[in-house]
């Protein structure tokens, strides 16, 4: 036991050091050096999605909304200790207070988390994870990675997912049980819930993408950047390296030739 813990710590530190080396990438684009493997995993995930996740999510969408919300609230409430731990690790006192208050209110007055009473009182949920904690400590994303079943991530955030599992009290308390079903159930329900809420969006995206893998990678990395900026995102710069190609009036090349509607 002790031995494996030491092994884990050493591996963990080495991996983190790798991320740190890659910090310079963070400003630019997150690279995808293992695209071939990622695309293979992506195809695997897609087949899991069309065989199981999507049909289940479609079936689940027939459950009346209050029921779906209740289930979602319960599992969100159970995530509070992970969020709180990361709030503290990020020295985010305000959100640590909010998370604690929300957990207490929703557990007691929300009947074990069925109702999100705290949000109704104006105490909004803040969501964070160990990947974001690592980011606050200055670790770069490393590289883009597609995790089996879990989907798009970065090297740093994948480590974060692992650490979040370890610090999850739900995991710790159920560790000694013979059949530890709680954790997989939680992950599956969160997955089905997410898929159900995005049934149309994902279908549309798939239909209108010429390269679905590349589109999803772009969306994930853009979204991740916004989360890092606390949603106060700057409108991304288009970084036109060849803006000099534009004419004085802002038009470009082809336009001048074909434009007749002045």
């Amino acid at each position, binding site marked *: 036991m002790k031995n494996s813990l030491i092994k884990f710590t050493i591996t963990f530190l080495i991996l983190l050091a790798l991320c740190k080396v890659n910090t310079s990438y963070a400003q630019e684009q997150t690279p995808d050096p293992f695209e071939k493997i990622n695309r293979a995993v992506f195809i695997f995930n897609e087949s899991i999605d069309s065989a199981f996740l999507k049909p289940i999510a479609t079936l689940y969408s027939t459950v009346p909304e209050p029921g779906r919300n209740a289930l979602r609230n319960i599992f969100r409430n159970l995530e509070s200790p992970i969020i709180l731990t990361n709030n503290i690790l990020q020295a985010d006192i305000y959100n640590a207070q909010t998370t604690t208050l929300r957990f207490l209110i929703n557990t007691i007055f929300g009947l074990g988390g069925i109702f999100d009473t705290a949000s109704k009182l104006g105490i909004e949920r803040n969501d964070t994870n160990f990947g974001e904690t690592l980011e606050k400590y200055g670790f770069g994303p490393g590289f883009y990675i597609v995790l089996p079943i879990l989907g798009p991530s970065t090297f740093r955030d994948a480590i974060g997912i692992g650490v979040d599992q370890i610090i999850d009290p739900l995991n710790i308390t159920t560790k000694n049980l013979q059949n530890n079903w709680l954790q997989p159930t939680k992950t599956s329900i969160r997955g089905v819930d997410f898929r159900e809420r995005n049934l149309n969006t994902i279908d549309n995206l798939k239909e209108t993408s010429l390269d679905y893998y*590349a589109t999803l990678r*772009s969306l994930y990395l853009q979204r991740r950047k*916004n989360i890092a900026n606390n949603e106060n995102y700057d409108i*991304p710069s*288009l970084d036109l390296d060849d803006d000099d*190609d534009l004419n004085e009036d*802002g038009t470009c090349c*082809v336009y001048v030739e074909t434009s007749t509607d*002045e």
Partner: protein
Amino acid sequence: MKYFNTNIFVALLIFFLSPFVFASLSISAEKDEALKFIENLGNKAILMLSNENYTEDQKISEFEKLLDQGFEVQLIARYALGKYWRKTPKIKRQEYVAAFRKFIVDSYASRLGQFGGEKFYTNNVREDGKRGFIVNSLIETPSGTKVKVDWRVKKINNALRIYDVVIEGISMVITQRDEFSSIIQRSGGNIDPLIKKLQNF
């Protein structure tokens, strides 16, 4: 100092300051114009989408009208090609732009029926680089979800045009560019497979 007549002084002051005053006045007028432009276009779009008298085909042709009125499709196409634009010969560019426009229309055409009942609010505008503005807006879906949508607009040939739409911080141009460059890279730097994909969409 007595030679320095106050009236002359004031006149000089006005003379030297006026460019700044007029510049800032004209910028705020342009800002207003950009805000009105998006407001106008958004309201037109919402009216069109919720009009139940339109057939599918009518909706599509109305959509194309709005697209050409409001969006600089050629510039969007050019940005979406990123660094490959420069490497593409002029004739190929035209072929690509035409394919891109068709792709945009086709990919939205099938989804127009999904919309209706949205509310649209513009709330702010700020300068963005040369000749450009960013207009912030909010779209409220019938279920009450609020979506932040930012519009990048620019004066082109004296008319305001949209060249990027940023939804909750996700830029359509950047997403498209990432996708297109992935396709081109995987085709060994050749743009033809992309054009074919756009045409056959």
